[in-house]
């Protein structure tokens, strides 16, 4: 009897310890996340001036207005390049390639390796290949192409996962009705995989917004509203970096404000994306 009670209480101690560990971990995570968030927002608000956000850039007023535009353009163009290629590639890998295809194994290996390479390496490659060899220089185009290549492996992998998770019975149903592979893929498989693909796209947007190393080498750091694809500019993240590096105390304020704006932009984007995601999913299911 006594032994049993002891065992019981030992178990109890263990479970209480585990449970408190869980709470501690959760608490630490929440505190640090909220801490960072509120620290940046607080400092951002302190530095807030309308002219710093929407005003024209000058050394007296290092406004981020141009950079907001550049960031949006970069996101759109990069996704426009990366997403279709990734989707087609993933569809090929999962639906078309034979299982024992050596070529496919090479592509897999390549995408997996590329996914683990630091972005600055892509930046270096982009600067040399697109910037110098192709002659695009520091420009939106060079930046987009470089970041697009960087994103390919990630979107391909996630799209592949999404496509693979579409139940085979949908495919069978479609083929059984005499549909071709192409129709099956585009009418049944991809729509069913859409939520997964969308979440890959959202993550990619986050990466484009957050990228600095690769962009400094390719998009460059010129503080101007880009007039065309071959102009250099800064995204918000690069603007933050340059401001902190070169701007002294005032620059740090600008950096905080930019950070706060970034947070708000990302928040809006995520809300928008999940709204669109919900809509797409519904359209298909209803």
């Amino acid at each position, binding site marked *: 009897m006594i032994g049993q009670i002891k065992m019981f209480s030992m178990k109890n101690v263990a479970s209480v310890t585990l449970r408190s560990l869980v709470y501690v971990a959760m608490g630490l995570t929440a505190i640090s996340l909220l801490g960072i968030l509120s620290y940046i927002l607080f400092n951002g608000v302190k530095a807030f001036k309308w002219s710093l956000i929407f005003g024209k850039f000058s050394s007296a007023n290092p406004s981020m207005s141009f950079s907001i535009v550049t960031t949006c353009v970069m996101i759109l163009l990069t996704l426009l390049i990366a997403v279709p290629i990734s989707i087609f590639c993933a569809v090929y890998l999962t639906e078309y390639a*034979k*299982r024992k295809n050596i070529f496919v194994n090479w592509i897999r290996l390549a995408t997996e390796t590329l996914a683990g390479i630091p972005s600055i390496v892509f930046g270096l490659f982009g600067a040399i290949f697109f910037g110098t060899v192709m002659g695009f220089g520091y420009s939106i185009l060079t930046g987009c192409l470089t970041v697009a290549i960087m994103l390919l492996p990630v979107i391909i992998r996630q799209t592949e996962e999404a496509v693979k998770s579409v*139940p085979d*019975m*949908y*495919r*069978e*149903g*479609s*083929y*059984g*009705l*005499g*549909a*071709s592979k192409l*129709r099956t893929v585009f*009418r*049944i498989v991809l*729509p*069913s995989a859409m939520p997964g693909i969308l979440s890959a796209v959202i993550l990619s947007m986050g990466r484009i917004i957050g990228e600095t190393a690769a962009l400094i080498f390719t998009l460059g750091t010129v503080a101007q509203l880009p007039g065309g694809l071959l102009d250099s500019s800064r995204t918000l993240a690069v603007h933050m970096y340059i401001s902190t590096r070169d701007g002294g105390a005032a620059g740090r304020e600008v950096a905080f404000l930019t950070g706060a704006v970034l947070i708000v932009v990302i928040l809006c984007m995520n809300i928008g994306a999940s709204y669109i995601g919900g809509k797409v999913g519904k359209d*298909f*299911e*209803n």
Partner: protein
Amino acid sequence: MLKAPKPLKIRVEDMNLYYDSFQALINVNLDVLTNEITAFIGPSGCGKSTLLKSLNRMNDLIESCRITGKITYDGEDIYGKMNVSELRKRVGMVFQKPNPFPMSVYDNIAYGPRTHGIKKKKVLDQIVEESLQNAAIWDELKDRLKKSALAISGGQQQRLCIARALAIKPEVILLDEPTSALDPISTTKIEDLLAELKDRYTIVIVTHNMGQAARISDKTAFFLHGEIVEFGRTMEIFSKPKDKKTEDYITGRFG
């Protein structure tokens, strides 16, 4: 009462089928006659689904699958010049688990006709109604055409899948254990439906339910280890099987 023999629809001749080196079908011969229900029975893994899928070339999807012998449809070799899409348009299929697409009831039915080039809304509307009516599910679904097909019951989903197969106006319908995932009432509904469809279609059905085979089929093929042990009139197979193994199986002594 003597009837003229029904015309031949599908003939399987000396067919062997391999998954890599594993032989799943051994020297199979089978005639499927027009407007009859042919049932495949036999223990799990004996090759019923494999043969069924060969009849509309769904096995093409399996890379390791290799076939020798000959299958003809209306006298034409289905592995020859015949277009696969055309073959599957004529030989529809209903699967074991109801597999409506994740879209509306209407779009599910319209998927097949659209695949084969029908675009006009009016024509599609008519096909949808007709198919659902033929599958005896129009009354239950007519107010829910725009709702997701995943939101209806399993039994309704399966009849929807039958309606979807009917929508491309096939001549033959293959069904792989269509009622195994359903409750008895839904099962009865589908059996009644098949009995009705028999006049207009040729039906091949795989079933683990002896009673079902006996109730609805005209011919029965008993499979064992990839071979057809016995094939003949259902009445005869069930009342006086020629082979001891058939008898053991249908009386439930093994399998």
